[in-house]
């Protein structure tokens, strides 16, 4: 008679698609609205048509980590800069877009 292998194997990973809003804490993603790639932070102020074509329309559209913008519309209204794996939906980073932009300056 064969025995079953190891009793229970444990796997712990980070949760995902509940968004850890820096203000409001862990929330269901239905409270947020998605805008798109975080590339939209980099408006080519004063740029030419080609720069705007790239900014408005062209996307890398990766299968792995995507940096993107969400707004906590049902919460604090903050725009969030989120790093999320678009295949597993795992979220690895949430920051306030406002801070990110100000630090970058």
């Amino acid at each position: 008679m064969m025995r079953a292998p190891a009793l229970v194997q444990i796997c712990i990973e980070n949760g995902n698609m509940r968004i850890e809003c820096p203000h409001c804490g862990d929330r269901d993603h239905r409270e947020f609205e998605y805008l798109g790639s975080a590339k939209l932070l980099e408006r080519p102020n004063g740029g030419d048509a080609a720069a705007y074509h790239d900014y408005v329309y062209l996307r890398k559209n990766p299968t792995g980590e995507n940096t993107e913008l969400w707004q906590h519309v049902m919460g604090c209204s903050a725009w969030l800069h989120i790093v999320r794996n678009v295949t597993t939906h795992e979220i690895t980073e949430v920051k306030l877009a406002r801070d990110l932009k100000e630090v970058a300056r």
Partner: protein
Amino acid sequence: MHYSVLQILKNGLTGNKGWKPVWRNPEPKKSYDVVIIGGGGHGLSTAYYLAKTHGIRNIAVLEKGYLGGGNVGRNTTIVRANYLQDGNLEFYSHSLKLWENLEQELNYNVMLSQRGCLMLAHNDGQYDAMAWRGNSNLATGDDAVLMGREDVRKLVPFLNFDDARFPIRGGLLQRTGGTARHDAVAWGYARGADMRGVDLIQNCEVKGFRIEGGKIKGVETSRGYIGAGKVGMSVAGRTSQVAEMAGLRLPIESHVLQAFVTEAVKPVIDNVISFGMGHFYISQSDKGGLVFGGDIDGYNSYSQRGNLPMVEHVAEAAMTLMPMVGKSRMLRSWGGIMDMSMDGSPIIDKTPVAGLYLNGGWCYGGFKATPAAGAAFAHLMATGKKADWATKYNLNRFETGHVIDDEGTGARPNLH
């Protein structure tokens, strides 16, 4: 083998052992005149029309998984031609004409069922916009009937005319719209292409392009290098990745669209019905399941599964619009990866790489487009010219501003 009444009878009486494989399992050759990447509905129909209409026989279709395993087998099977914008109008009109003859064309029953598509309007503004749409459809030669509230009630009395949020103002019916058996479309085209000598190669993933002097030479695959005179990309859901291997960045995002089916029930819904205020559309399959869907989940995703907010939203829309479905049970939900283009319309065009062609960005329109997209892509690849029903699906339209925005939502793929 040709399917006929005689074959059915003969096989039925002899234990059905005489049926032949619907397609071969060929080994890839060293090179082909044309390689199509993607064995979904569009790739298969492209190969079919290349072989049938343009007489090109040395063709391979390379499929990463199994034939018809992408969106052609994951959609809600709706076929219609009630678009609004120039570019889409003539394209879907042509597609519907091809659909109407597809069974005879393929000698394969794709079960096109023109049971009518009804789009509901919930206020005067929507009603006028629908009239514009209907007039445009009629001007294109397609069917459209504008219905007031009482006409809609006569057609579909089970809708909530009492206290729906939002009230039914009227609707636009396209009687020639309907549904088709999605898998059969892929299989029918596959069979037709195979019969004409096209090599359908499954479990063959394209890993890279060989490009020399700005011209395509062939593709690197999981089954070795395959030379090609021309290469067509028809890989909805993976378009950005495949194009990136050729150095292209596209106006496309990938999103997940969920679809749902209930347990089979006796016929209650004859038409395809779409709600104009929430994101919800529904039809009943020949098997009896209520097939329904909504909007994309709203965020980029390559996972073929969705999340609860959209599931709930769609079911809530069903309950306000047609509360008689409350006691049906949702049996299965699934997701497909949509190539969401930045204006909601597709691209069928050459690329900056000579000999490399792109068919993508189909958003929600891919299934109903299958015949005309394949025929147009084949036409472009064979002749180098745009088919006259697909002249506006240009890759550079985002640069020039000639966008085709049927929803008017701009460069927000998750809102199309």
